[in-house]
């Protein structure tokens, strides 16, 4: 489904942000990408939907090479790639429903977008998704009136509106408190399975990666240093990803909520 080969991104002189990165994803479910700040996690996701232009390498989505696409062809690929953002990136002054329907902008005409006359099946889908994330009673509320967790649920619904083949989630819980983070990760996992969509999720919280992902990819300095199931994330592996000095086994990597298993990192 998604096949990345030797993907490299160089922003300027110095160390590449991403270097000869390989990854193939075929099944639905969550794939967590973990690594320290500046490891290239965001760059990787933004190369996949070409918000960032890769320097070299190849990205194939369902057998279509997307690194060279332009104009309408690029937009057609983008509309099948959902994205969820760390700061939600909603349109504050529009309603919840308008924000969710904006996921269909790649499909509807400019006139339909302007007059908000979306096809009935889009509206049905939007209602279904909003009910699914528990926000159906908020359809006409402005997005800036929502709490952080509610805003991210709108973000999730918007991504799923695109009828995506894959979803990219860039630190979806980094702006949220631990309890809301768990709720959002739960929604991502359930919806990923319900719609059979693979989700590529950047996380800085190892505990969340362990609990929700099917597979974990470790990035360090733009290179892949780990790729395996969450059970294989041993102390040594985490040292390889984060380096020993930066890590505080008591606090940083454990979930600060009582619901998290405190033995996670130690074991």
């Amino acid at each position, binding site marked *: 489904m998604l096949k990345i080969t030797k993907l490299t991104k160089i922003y300027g002189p110095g160390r590449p942000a991403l270097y000869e990165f390989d990854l193939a994803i075929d099944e639905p479910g969550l794939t967590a990408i973990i690594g320290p700040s500046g490891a290239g996690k965001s760059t990787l996701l933004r190369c996949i*939907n070409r918000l960032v232009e890769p320097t070299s390498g190849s990205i194939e989505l369902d057998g279509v090479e997307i690194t060279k696409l332009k104009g309408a062809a690029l937009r057609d690929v*983008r509309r099948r*790639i959902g994205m969820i953002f760390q700061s939600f990136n909603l349109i504050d002054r529009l309603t919840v429903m308008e924000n969710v329907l904006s996921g269909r902008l790649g499909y509807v005409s400019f006139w339909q977008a302007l007059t908000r006359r979306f096809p009935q099946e889009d509206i049905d889908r939007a209602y279904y998704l909003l009910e699914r994330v528990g926000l159906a009673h908020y359809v006409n509320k402005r997005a800036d009136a929502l709490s952080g967790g509610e805003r991210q649920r709108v973000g999730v619904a*918007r991504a799923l509106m695109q009828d995506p083949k894959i979803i990219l989630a860039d630190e979806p819980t980094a702006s949220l408190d631990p309890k809301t983070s768990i709720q959002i990760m739960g929604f991502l996992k359930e919806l990923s399975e319900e719609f059979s969509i693979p989700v590529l999720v950047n996380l800085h919280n190892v505990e969340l990666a362990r609990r929700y992902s099917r597979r974990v990819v470790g990035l360090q300095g733009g290179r892949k240093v780990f790729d395996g199931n969450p059970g294989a994330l041993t102390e040594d592996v985490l040292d390889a990803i984060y380096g020993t000095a930066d890590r505080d086994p008591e606090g940083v990597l454990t979930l600060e909520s009582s619901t998290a298993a405190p033995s996670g990192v130690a074991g």
Partner: protein
Amino acid sequence: MKTDMLANTGTMTKTHTLATYHWERYTFAQRIGRFLAFLAAALVVSWALVRVDIYWPWAWDAPAQILDQFQRMYPPDWSVLPRVLESLLETVNIAIIATALSVVMAVPVAFVSARNTTPHPVLWWLGRLILVATRSVNTIVWALLFVAIFGPGVVAGICAIAFRSIGFLGKLIAEGIEECDPRPVEAMTATGASRAKVILYAIVPQILPTFYAVTVLRWDINIRESTVLGLVGAGGIGMILSSAVDFLAWQQAAVILISILGVVVLGELLSAWLRRRVL
């Protein structure tokens, strides 16, 4: 505290504690420099006064003239009020039509002149040029130009105000566009939306409050601008003010001036209220 300081710093403290502190905001050289700068400014002002041809007796008897003028204006001749009000309505209408026309022309220019929405760098320069050019020409100068094209009347006045307003509206709206939060733009781009749809959903909602506030503000300014258009024959209340002054009908002129003041105050109140509502 004091003993600590003495103990720690040894011999140095002796001179410090004995000498009185000396502090000056400016050094001697700085004071000389400041004096010369003030002197130069004073020279420039006095040179201008000397060069300008002022007939001083007329300036000195101004207080008497002002008193005299008030006497000529009093009592105001309220019989002209219906005609004045009709003309005022025309003035306000000129401002409304001109503002509407100007918005239609300014919005495309604003999008072209904002760095984040311009289709091409060449168009960006062109947009900036339009904004600067329309703004740097005064309304009265535009009016003279359009009176020459359309002849005297309302059309020339409307065009004059509309053109002068493009630069004002366009510049402020373009600034609003450039200050937009880029994150919704990123999100809309990621959905596969075209450039036009990205602008429609990610940028337009963000600039709408600025757009309304700036338009109402300009309408308010345009009411004031349109009161003087008549002086060059471009319609509105200025026309009858001009003829009242020409015929030395000071009691009528008084009514006109009071009416203009009233309308400008009303416009300002309305505009302030509207702007509070949208922001």
